[in-house]
């Protein structure tokens, strides 16, 4: 049974590697992004850019995980076990 779990171990590994990578990008590049804003326009633009980048990071995680899961579920449902009765 443990071997049957191998695809799920793989999905788990992808999930946490993405979490580490994206958290690193978030704290090291997105949060400190840009110069100290001198005007409201620059401040607003920078804030919106950061927001867009955060949404993009989250979206990447979602898309990858949904893609992997749909692939796994699709493959398994073709041979889904049926109740014995």
């Amino acid at each position: 049974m443990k071997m049957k779990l191998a695809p799920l171990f793989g999905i788990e590994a992808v999930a946490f590697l993405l979490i580490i990578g994206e958290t690193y990008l978030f704290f090291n590049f997105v949060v400190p992004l840009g110069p100290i804003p001198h005007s409201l326009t620059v401040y607003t633009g920078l804030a919106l850019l950061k927001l867009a980048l955060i949404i993009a990071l989250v979206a990447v995680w979602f898309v990858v995980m949904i893609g992997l899961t749909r692939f796994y579920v699709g493959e398994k449902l073709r041979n889904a076990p049926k109740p014995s009765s």
Partner: protein
Amino acid sequence: MPSGLVEFGLLLLSFAVPLLAVLIGLPPFLGFLANKGWTSDDAHKNPPTKVPEPAGPILFLAALVGEIVVAIGFRSWVPVAVILGAAVAFAVGLTDDLFVLGGKTKPLLLLLAGVAFVSLVVIVPGLYQPLITFPILGDTAPHFIIYTVLAVVAFPVVSDAFNMMDAFNGEISWFTFLASLALLVGVSVHAAYRSGFSLARVGATLPLVAVAAGFLLFNRYPSKAFDGDSGSLMFGAMFAGLAITGGVEIAAIIAIVPAILNSFYTLSSVRGFVERRKMLSRPTYIGSNGLLYPSTEPGAPNTLVRLVLLAGALSEKDLVKNLIYLTMAACLFSVAISVLTWVI
């Protein structure tokens, strides 16, 4: 500040006291619940059996006693902050156990646990370091505001993730026990390799490990006790608080990846926060042979359990074993991350 043998004795006490509190306090409390008729159907048995619920109040009291031992023994505010967040989550969970809260109300109320936790920063500025330490790459720059906002949000996210891992006999207790062990290793390695890191933060982790270990004896298959939302939400809030005060955020997230994936699958397939009692279709069902099968309905919510069962129908006991394997894998990776972060 205690040192040497005294520190070791305090650490031992902060594990032993909550463990004994669960082992001694839970049996009479379960009898009380059964006498009052406060039981739930063990839905995955055929026919369903009645199990006393919620055991959360005793689990919370045991954790509270343990954190008090750490707070007094180490003269630290860290356990106070941890148990404060856990107390709010416990109160939200108990309200849900008694009156059933809406799917959206619960996470919103759980934000208060995060607010209670971070509000102690006013009294204790060093409660947490507002930075993340990555394996090999090291520390990020401190970002107080963004870190604090994320810390507040972490409470409902982690608490709900724990709550969603509470569906089968022994699932929540095994999951909490293994994840808290990985957390304990992370915080201990952090304490051992970074100077100035208080041992109280290690001590504060021990009551969670002890309570989960004690509860495991009652909750494992076949369950003699269910924790209820009061127990599972409290476990999650304690875990979140300890990860933040212990400075082991990355390792902690890795340890609970199975729960995060489970929440993500559920939320993305039912498209939002829906109270589990109100889900239109079930992700799994019991066959006439007593085995659990994945639902093949197109609209069935995806849960981690459904994905595991897609690999083959299982008895409840074997299903929980498989969930434990997935959690063990995540916890081993979490320990490796802790070593890579603090030792290398």
